[in-house]
């Protein structure tokens, strides 16, 4: 009896150390943990590397003149800036917003308030999800086919491209925001005798407003940095223009053109423009994030 009492604990001891967590299993775990840490490090390092260079190069070349002068420097000359590109960019963005915001928000109202579960709602959602994945450059080709072939390169055609680009983002984010509004609020409003129009306008939309605005900001931020659809819609303009139906300069297109020509001055403008773009887009993401944080609280 004393023999078995001595043996038993020894066996159990061996079992726990050897079998429960065998060295191989342990080392595999450690290696995999290191690998997952490494992937995080790569992500963080590449982000910081880009931010560092754009910040460093951009800040050296940015100044009041560059931001306010309204014509690009001629090749070989130093005088000039991209004030007109900022204005052109805003025109294109504003057109895209004017086209996509009303459409996106009201279509989302239908999906979440009136058409829930209908075949149409399903089809709209499906086509919007697919449209989100359509490359931005194809939005540009579409705007070229619809607008530019008839009336030439213009800020408006760039706006059409951005409208198509932004519509699915606006629609989906608005729908999600509306679905978060409690059904009780709708019932309370309807119970007091409001129509569906009044309920939507005075109760549901205001309640969802912060989340909707977040979606709108993200849609704008997504479009603000896009160069591809503008290459053959808004095209380019070396000079000041506020003509909605004429070609305008934009920052992303400027960064593209000036990064692939061999002139120092233009390359410096490209870096300064990249910094402006990056700062704008990052600020927009921060604001959107702040709004989300505030509404969750």
């Amino acid at each position, binding site marked *: 009896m004393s023999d078995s009492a001595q043996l038993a604990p020894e066996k159990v001891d061996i079992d726990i150390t050897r079998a429960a967590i065998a060295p191989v299993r342990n080392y595999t775990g450690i290696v995999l943990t290191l690998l997952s840490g490494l992937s995080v490090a790569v992500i963080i390092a590449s982000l910081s590397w880009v931010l560092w260079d754009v910040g460093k190069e951009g800040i050296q070349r940015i100044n009041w003149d560059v931001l306010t002068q309204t014509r690009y420097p001629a090749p070989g000359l130093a005088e000039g800036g991209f004030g007109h590109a900022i204005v052109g960019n805003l025109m294109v963005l504003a057109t895209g917003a004017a086209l996509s915001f*009303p459409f996106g928000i009201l279509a989302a109202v239908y999906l979440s308030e009136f058409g829930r579960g209908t075949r149409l709602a399903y089809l709209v959602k499906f086509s919007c999800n697919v449209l989100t994945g359509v490359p931005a450059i194809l939005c540009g*080709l579409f705007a070229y086919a619809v607008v530019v072939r008839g009336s030439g390169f213009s800020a408006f055609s760039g706006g059409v491209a951005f409208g198509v680009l932004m*519509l699915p983002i606006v629609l989906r984010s608005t729908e999600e925001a509306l679905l978060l509004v409690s059904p009780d609020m709708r019932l309370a409003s309807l119970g007091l005798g409001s129509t569906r129009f*009044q309920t939507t306008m005075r109760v549901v939309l205001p309640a969802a407003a912060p989340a909707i605005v977040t979606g709108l900001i993200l849609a704008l931020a997504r479009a603000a940095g896009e160069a591809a659809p503008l290459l053959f819609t808004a095209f380019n303009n070396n000079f000041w223009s506020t003509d909605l139906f004429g070609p305008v300069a934009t920052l992303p297109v400027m960064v593209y053109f000036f990064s692939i020509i061999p002139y120092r001055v233009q390359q410096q403008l490209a870096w300064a423009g990249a910094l402006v773009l990056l700062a704008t*887009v990052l600020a927009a993401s921060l604001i959107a994030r702040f709004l989300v944080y505030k509404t969750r609280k």
Partner: protein
Amino acid sequence: MTSAATGYGSPPNPDIDVDIEKKASLSRAVDVGFVRLTLALAGFAGIILIWVILQTTEAALPAIQQFGLGFLVTTRWNPVENIYGVLPQIYGSLVTSLVALIFAIPLGIGTAIFLTEGFAPKWVTAPIGFAVELIVAIPSVVLGLWGIFVLIPAVRPIFRAINQTLGWIPFLGGPAPRGPSLLIVAVVLGIMISPIIISITRSTFESLPRSLKEGALALGATRWETLLTVMIPAGLSGIVSSIMLALGRALGETMVAAMLSGNANRINISLMQPGSTITGLIASQFGEAGRLQVSALMYAGVVLMVLTLLVNIVAEIIIRKFQNLEQ
């Protein structure tokens, strides 16, 4: 539900003052008009996708008629003679996207696991999650600029060393690399698309029932055994659809390809040599294209659209299936 709750369609009460009735009928008209307006706009939003497809195809028709399917398998792109074929660009788009996925899949899944599986406290993972979101926000043209002036000079010596020692491998061979190449495009694309994989994989892991993980741990599996044998298989459809979406994004990304591929119209087996993608071709040539050339570029756009639509629809179907399983 709503119409029943508010009693639309009930007959007007004859005892009610006429004034009120007028007001009521006006607000009812506004109400019905509003619902119809939203219905019309929703319908329009649904049609946009089809409109985009039809318009682009229509603009590509002259080239489609002239070159037919031969466009897809010939390698000449000669605006002077008006002869066009996009095989090198199709090759370049597929190769850069697939190599980008080879970088992005381990990076994305590794980071997603790190963020969800409690390897670090929240004050570490929260800023990392934020950094991942910031990568999505960086405009691709800025990444292209950075690639030209910072990344290419930095990797050129590394490329040359690899080319000298491992040049016998076809993918790494050819003359001494100068930098612009399909490989550099793939590297930048890999960084750009990993956030898609990270965010979807992350939410997939978070949506899996806790009991799955707890069960595996209780049976004595280590943390990684739980991940590899339970969590990843259970979340596989979410992970696969995130990879499909990332692939679609990589196929459609334009500026990085236009700025870093070298825009060479030929098929190079070596990844370190210049190449071209469909998007890069369209971006770099559209500005000064003639009539038939515009149509040929539109045709290239249609090819790109078919590729990305296929990828996105497959991803969408996987996601739907996954949601149905959850419910």
